[in-house]
């Protein structure tokens, strides 16, 4: 009985790439974010997204990887279609918008996957090992914890808006977009204040502010797999940047 419980407690929920140290994931996230913005070539950008999709798919994220890959291809294709539409100003705006989304895809892909595959205690331990002060780590952790809640709260608020009959149709939302934002933000902020206050009280009474050395349920270590992944990642991204300057960067693949 006790052995079974112990097994359940130390059971690893995230496997392979998802089990990497949070610091390694964060480093990759930042690197990918920068590189994604500097890449212009269509081929190299696609290589980045496909490789990233593979990386995520190995670590408990098959569905998410496929979803984002399909999304990327659709947006890229639609963006290519824009060449055949020539409405002054609007075409340019749409095209800029499309390119921005394409550049954001790898970041969102990596960011959300990191969020889903990182245990909060692992995160807290690795932040502590980076010698960040508590005044930085606690807000970060609260934010990390609050993001999934945000979606639930947002849905609740939309429901009550529907019942009240304020901004309950798509049309009203467009016409009164500013007041719609206000109607969503006011209760969201009020809830946020209340929840963070209660959360902080609950954390404090369980010793959150103690500055003891923490140990997570998983072993959190920056060891050889992390070094290998980080070095390979840097090499790969550098190679992409280099390829972008060669003739490969000029190949156009998205045409209608």
């Amino acid at each position: 009985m006790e052995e079974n419980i112990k097994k359940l407690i130390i059971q690893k929920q995230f496997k392979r790439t998802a089990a990497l140290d949070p610091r390694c994931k964060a480093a990759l996230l930042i690197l990918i974010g920068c590189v994604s913005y500097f890449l212009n070539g269509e081929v190299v950008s696609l290589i980045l997204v496909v490789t990233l999709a593979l990386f995520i798919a190995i670590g408990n994220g098959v569905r998410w990887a496929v979803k984002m890959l399909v999304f990327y291809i659709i947006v890229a294709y639609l963006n290519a279609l824009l060449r055949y539409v020539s409405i002054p100003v609007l075409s340019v705006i749409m095209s800029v918008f499309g390119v921005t989304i394409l550049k954001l895809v790898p970041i969102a892909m990596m960011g959300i996957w990191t969020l889903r595959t990182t245990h909060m205690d692992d995160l807290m331990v690795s932040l502590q090992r980076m010698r960040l002060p508590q005044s930085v780590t606690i807000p970060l952790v609260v934010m990390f914890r609050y993001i999934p809640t945000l979606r639930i709260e947002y849905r609740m608020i939309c429901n009550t808006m529907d019942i009240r009959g304020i901004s309950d149709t798509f049309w009203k939302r467009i016409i009164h977009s500013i007041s719609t934002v206000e109607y969503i933000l006011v209760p969201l902020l009020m809830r946020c204040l209340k929840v963070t206050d209660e959360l902080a009280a609950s954390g404090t009474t369980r010793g959150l502010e103690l500055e003891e050395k923490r140990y997570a349920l998983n072993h959190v270590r920056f060891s050889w797999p992390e070094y290998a992944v980080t070095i390979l990642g840097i090499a790969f991204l550098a190679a992409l940047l280099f390829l972008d300057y060669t003739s490969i960067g000029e190949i156009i693949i998205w045409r209608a």
Partner: protein
Amino acid sequence: MITFENFSFRYEERDEFTLRDINLTVQTGELILLTGRSGCGKTTLIRSLNGLIPHFYPGEIKGNISLDGQSLLELKPSELAGKVGTVFQNPRSQFFMTDTTRELAFGCENMGFSREKTIDRIVKSVTDLRLSDYLNRSIFDLSSGEKQQIAVGSVYALLPKVYIFDEPSANLDYDATKRLAEIMKHLKQDGYTILVVEHRFYYLKELLDWAFLIQEGGIKQEFTREQFCRIPDEMRISYGLRTVYPERDAREYKAKSNVRESGSVLKVEGLSFAYRKEPDILRNINFEACEGDVIGILGHNGAGKTTLLSIMTGLLKEKSGAVYYNGKKLSPRQRRNLSYLVMQDTDYQLFASSVEEELSLGIKEDCAEKVTETLDALELNAYRECHPASLSGGQKQRVTIGAAIVKDSPVIYFDEPTSGLDYDSMVRVSRLIEQLASAGVIIFVVSHDFEFITRTCSEVLQLDGQDSIKNQVLTPEILLSISKQYFE
């Protein structure tokens, strides 16, 4: 042993002392109930015990509190963490982690325990409190009762000597409350000291050693268990206390006759619903409601009460069946226009920058007169210009009810309107619902609060029932069978 010596406390932002001259001794191993009207200072009292006062909520202190001879005022809340454990009211906002196992580990990790020690503590907590079914689950998939158990578990893993429960049953159904009482019994048997702040304390009647009545920041009276269970009704009501024996209400129930036989009728036929790819949550639900009916929707957590409300208010589309109003079939959008939902958490429902504006929000015609009338009727006139967020919980609730009145909704739904309310506020909500009903509104109330149901409802819809579910006119017999299910 906990001792309060002439303890007084004033919050920094207030002029008056919230707690005045508290003298109180709690022996090790006792279970103490602290009760009294909302705002009497119960919560402040326990905050000063778990160290949140004065470190988290600063203010002026007089007197002293000590635990086993050591003054608590000198200790930081984090130093108290291994000594005094607190389980808070809202199970949703006391989780720091996103999965249950790590939530259980949270306190131990803060204390800097080694990995092996943390694991041993979780194992102890899981075996002693029987939590093994909940390990490795996302906290977003748990019911409030399950969350509350994990919250106790997480505190238990730190092995504190003193447990504090701040209105732990406010969000729980009857089964979950029973389970909570079992856990408290277990803790008591193991010799821990337990302090419970509670309005609905019926589940503690066999466990408590002392009950303290707190009024205006002071201890008004103390009772032994026998005395507390025998307080005469008039005295209890004058103290603003709920009943210890809600089941007795069942016998004294007088049927509320709804005189109105004419008027608008809301009818539901063969309603069923399932979320995508999941089994049916609601199956074959039928009921009919006329103007002036107050229908209680009962059932354990997860029986589909909230889902039913979402369908009735048009937020969800039914899988099969139909909703008719005066013989006309309604689409979800039409249902939305017809109905109003007063949620348990009123923060979600307040959008405007003043109470007055809140009431008229989303209404096209000129409604100034109606707003004034409603404000008068709800005793909110003094707060006309106030920001809704600055009001107390009960006032916020009345503002949302006010919005329903101004909107002229013929059907109003209440989701757990009395959770965490004291006797007076509960009676007030009940009266307000009666007034609405006699003005011809059809009212549905989702509630676990037996005392409130007996007082308010004319009919019930039990979602726990098998096969075809119908509404029943509330009779003493039905109440008796419900009370058996709840309290035995």
